[in-house]
């Protein structure tokens, strides 16, 4: 049991100050911008909720938001089952386990723009391995700078390449924590492979999977650098995800007001989805 102790606040104070400095001040700045119009040189005019209204009525915003949900939905639908499948097929012990884990973790430790640049070059027709292989060996016309579908597939494959290992590592950690007795009992009880997965492995992986899915949701929803470097949002606007659009508006066009309003809505959506998801996944444990 935890004890009641208000002095514990002193322990939390450094974190509080640091995060407050980093989060509160910028958020206030954003809120401030979101209700004003600026013409540079610190001239601001009260704008009320106009920016929000404008944004919520703009097709461009919904298009970007739609692409964002599509992207996140697709990569979750691929990475989560694939990650679980890979974790299930890995050996539980042996000298190869650390080797596998290190190799799998490698893509996650490459700076995001290097990931984007890598895949950009990798996909180049003639020069890149992927581009060459598809075009010249298989004869499939592939150029992601021209074809939106090719661009989408490339972004998704890149994300799968980059992040599936996170799901693998977390699921694997959940799996190795299951004691052998469970598998032995299941064998004696005559359980099928599916039953073992459904009644032993999945429940034991549930908490790590919650984390994996939450992290993957948040990070894919906020993704910016990799697709920006890979496709620049193109061809056309076909791969302009929410954050790419946001940066375009804020830093490209320097429309601070609309950008700030968009930031707030964006943040609110992320929070809302994360919270709903978190409550759903942890509902049973609370009982």
């Amino acid at each position, binding site marked *: 049991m*935890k004890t*009641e102790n208000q002095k*514990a606040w002193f322990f939390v104070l450094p*974190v509080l100050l640091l995060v407050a400095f980093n989060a509160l001040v910028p958020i206030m700045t954003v809120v401030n911008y979101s209700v004003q119009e600026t013409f540079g040189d610190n001239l601001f005019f009260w704008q009320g909720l106009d920016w929000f209204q404008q944004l919520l009525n703009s097709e461009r915003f919904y298009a970007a938001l739609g692409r964002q949900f599509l992207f996140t939905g697709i990569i979750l639908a691929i990475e989560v089952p694939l990650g679980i499948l890979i974790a299930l097929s890995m050996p539980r012990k042996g000298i190869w386990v650390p080797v596998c884990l290190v190799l799998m973790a490698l893509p996650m430790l490459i700076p995001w723009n290097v990931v984007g640049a890598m*895949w950009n070059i990798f996909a180049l027709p*003639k020069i890149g391995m992927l581009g060459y292989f598809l075009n010249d060996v298989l004869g499939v016309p592939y150029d992601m700078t021209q074809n939106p579908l090719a661009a989408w597939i490339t972004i998704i494959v890149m994300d799968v390449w980059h992040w*599936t290992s996170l799901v693998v590592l977390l699921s694997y950690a959940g799996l190795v924590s299951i004691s052998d007795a469970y598998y032995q009992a299941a064998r004696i009880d005559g359980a099928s492979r599916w039953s073992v997965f459904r009644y032993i492995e999945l429940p034991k992986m549930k908490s790590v999977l919650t984390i994996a899915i939450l992290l993957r949701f948040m990070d894919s929803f*906020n993704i910016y*650098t990799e697709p920006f470097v890979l496709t620049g949002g193109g061809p056309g606007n076909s791969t302009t995800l929410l954050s790419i659009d946001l940066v375009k508006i804020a830093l490209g066009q320097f429309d*601070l007001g609309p950008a700030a309003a968009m930031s707030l809505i964006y943040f609110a959506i992320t929070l809302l989805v994360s919270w709903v998801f978190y409550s759903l996944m942890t509902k049973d444990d609370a009982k």
Partner: protein
Amino acid sequence: MRAKHLIPIVYILFLMLPIYWLIAMSVKTTNEILAGFTLFPQDFTMDNYVKIFTDPTWYWGYINSIIYVSLNTIISILVALPAAYAFSRYRFLGDKQLFFWLLTNRMAPAAVFALPFFQLYSAVGLFDTHLAVALAHTLFNVPLAVWILEGFMRGVPKELDETAYVDGYSFPHFFGKIFLPNIASGVGVAAFFCFMFSWVELLLAKTLTAVEAKPIAATMTRTASSAGYELGLLAAAGTLTIIPGAIVIYFVRNYIAKGFALGRV
């Protein structure tokens, strides 16, 4: 070898393919790269690496990145330790709300913070310093570190604290001598994550630096646009960015699976 082991093997091959491609390209000459596809380097050269290690704008990029990443890891762990201890041991007014609020910062899109951060750190005179990037990255690393450490600390029985006090240890002495060694692997895992997310993040790092603290990844983007298509050089620089990560994973390899499982997960 059983058939099901084919799945991780194929997956690892898929992961290694682009990395191999990057490394192979880094030891090719520009002519060879542009001439068309070759699986193995025909004209092996180390020129790209020589260039990076002799040109200060290049190698300083690495040094800058390593400085702010290390700084961030140290700051994050130092402030997260006492907070995680408080969350794992005590109930206090607003503890749950605070914990959730901390986590929400992990969900904030970096793009949202880019511009306000630029203004904030310019205003306090930290723009283009290592400290600025290190502090900015604590926004998402501190919540994560608190989260991971709290899980590990919860696994340490409270009796340990009580026994130590009965034995006459002061709090700092207890924390450093007895408690920390018990959660050493948790600190390892948390540090790994802080290092990782600080090392790979670029948007904020690029926004908050100009010359003095410019990260390597930003140096690369500039090269990509200004120097035309020096793909070999770019590939060599990219290859070098993988190395620190690889070293860090090597050190925590035994904690990765265990650490996740023990943590508050």
